């Protein structure tokens, strides 16, 4: 088989199953690719070559004995550094966890292991998943494989870049306000935020517990579907996980048919603030969907204009509480000058040293929003807006099967361009945030390159809670039609690294 790193996960899995190639060979090929390009892309924070090869060998043995029957057995993966991996460094992109090796695995890591998927390493991210560009990582930014001077998106820029640069066929990300979808859009890859509760959060370091969800990243819809099936499902260790079977997303991906489907375009997510080239590609995709037999109508979600405000009150509030445990007492760094400082002082010094500016900003914002006297006007009000947004979605879904919008308002901007303007940075999430607030599922799919800068543009598909299969049905149809036009996937147009 020619260049193993240019194959899809599905193709690799079949080849491994047919013993045309071993997991070890596939894993080595990807490790070599990482060694070749990651100095420039900086998608990875931790790679342990020997460990990955050893694991791949184990998987090959299990396959030989017929002990593994997963559709992704032997295929390598990159894991966002927000996932607890036993004995393997987990930093969450923060200096406060420098050197920490968790004593346990996240549930989805156990699932991936049981499925014979081989970890290549942990990927870079905005510190504690707070950001939209991966520039807030405590370990330096990740570069967009399409243009190394540009951001790959965030917070899961590392996972998206790893996939886009062919360092890994697939990756796990997490999405709290768009951290899987927006990087997918900016790197020309596919990313899905499953329905809230569809994938276990046990072992995923919490940012905003009522918004976080782990999800699959890959270069095409089918790979994403296969990965979604492996990681999804109920977990008794996560009280908020859905106790129902994972929707059959693979079958839906095969059934790439939108005939008779009703698709809604969200009025509030396509006007001012969106780059011209992004809207152009978006409108072209709408045309394609109509050509494919879907009925497209405009729907209004009037409370979406308040989504950003509600999100930037809820997230910091929950995060300020979730991040309180990082105090230098039980794990991670401790900043103690040995001059008999009190525990209060050592905690404060540790957090001051270990956390970056964006994290500190949000912790203070959250502490403020929850304070007595402010709770009702801020956190309380935000949770009420959330109800209104959920109702907007429910109302829209009473008229259509799925909703669509551009995933992000712009293409990838230059590294450093928005770093000094937190508010401008927050606006990147304007289209993705409402989905997390309501708990729905959504996918970002590459739909072309913006004419003005040649950079990837993504389209977001949104489905009702627990209807994740609809994402794959529509996504697959659109992907297929576009691939016909382009003669392949968009990612093949990315510059060679």
């Amino acid at each position, binding site marked *: 088989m020619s260049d193993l790193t240019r194959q899809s996960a599905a193709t690799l899995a079949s080849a491994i199953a047919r013993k045309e190639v071993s997991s070890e060979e596939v894993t080595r090929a990807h490790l070599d690719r990482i060694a070749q390009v990651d100095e420039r892309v900086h998608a990875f924070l931790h790679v342990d070559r020997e460990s990955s090869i050893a694991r791949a060998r184990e998987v090959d043995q299990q396959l030989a004995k017929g002990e593994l029957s997963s559709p992704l057995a032997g295929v390598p993966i990159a894991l966002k550094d927000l996932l607890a991996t036993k004995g393997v460094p987990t930093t969450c992109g923060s200096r406060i966890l420098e050197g920490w090796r968790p004593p346990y695995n996240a549930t989805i890591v156990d699932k991936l292991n049981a499925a014979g998927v081989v970890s290549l390493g942990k990927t870079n991210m905005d510190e504690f998943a707070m950001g939209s560009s991966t520039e807030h990582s405590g370990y330096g930014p990740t570069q967009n494989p399409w243009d190394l001077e540009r951001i790959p998106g965030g917070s899961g820029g590392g996972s998206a870049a790893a996939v886009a640069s062919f360092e890994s066929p697939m990756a796990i990300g997490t999405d709290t306000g768009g951290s899987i979808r927006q990087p997918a859009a900016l790197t020309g890859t596919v990313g899905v935020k499953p329905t809230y509760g569809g994938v276990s959060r046990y072992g995923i370091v919490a940012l905003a517990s009522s*918004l976080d969800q782990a999800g699959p990243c890959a270069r095409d819809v089918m790979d994403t579907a296969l990965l979604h099936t492996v990681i999804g499902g109920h977990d008794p260790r996560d009280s*908020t996980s859905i106790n129902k079977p994972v929707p059959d997303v693979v079958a839906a991906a095969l059934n790439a048919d939108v005939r008779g489907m009703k698709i809604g375009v969200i009025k509030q997510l396509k006007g001012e603030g969106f780059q011209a080239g992004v809207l152009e590609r978006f409108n072209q995709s709408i045309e394609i969907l109509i050509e494919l037999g879907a009925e497209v109508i405009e729907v209004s979600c009037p409370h979406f204009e308040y989504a950003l405000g509600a999100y930037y009150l809820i997230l910091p509030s929950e995060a300020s509480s979730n991040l309180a445990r990082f105090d230098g007492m039980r*794990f991670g760094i401790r900043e103690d000058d040995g001059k008999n400082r009190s*525990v209060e002082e050592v905690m404060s010094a540790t957090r001051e040293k270990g956390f970056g500016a964006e994290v500190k900003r949000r912790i*203070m914002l959250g502490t403020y929003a929850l304070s007595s006297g402010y709770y009702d006007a801020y956190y*309380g009000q935000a949770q009420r807006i959330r109800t209104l947004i959920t109702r907007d979605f429910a109302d829209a879904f009473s008229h259509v099967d799925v909703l669509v919008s551009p995933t992000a308002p712009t293409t990838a901007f230059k590294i450093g361009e928005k770093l000094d303007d937190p508010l401008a940075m927050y606006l990147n999430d304007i289209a993705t945030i409402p989905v997390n607030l309501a708990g729905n599922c959504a996918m970002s799919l590459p739909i072309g390159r913006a004419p003005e800068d040649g950079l990837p543009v993504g389209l977001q598909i949104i489905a009702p809670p627990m209807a994740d299969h609809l994402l794959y049905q529509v996504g697959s149809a659109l992907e297929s039609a576009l691939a016909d036009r382009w003669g392949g996937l968009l990612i093949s147009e990315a510059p060679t690294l």
Partner: protein
Amino acid sequence: MTQGGIDAEQVKHLGKLARLELSPEEVADYTLQLEQILGAITSISAVAADHIPPTSHPIPMENVYREDIAVRGLEINDFARAAPSFEDDRFRVPRILGEPG
């Protein structure tokens, strides 16, 4: 304390509550930034939502429990090495000044 606005004293107090040893420059910077952010965020107060129930869990679920069975958890070796300071099988922490909350 003014609604929607935030001053340096408040930021210092927040730093204390959140156990962040902020430098004077940070206090000044964050005061400005938080003021900006709050200004944008508090547009949500324009929505008349007093009668709307708040959402604390996006997907409605109730009564999720675990049976009362004890299971062995971690061994000391699993976490002792990761601890910044561990002594006599316990986590060693610097001297405590205050009373618990």
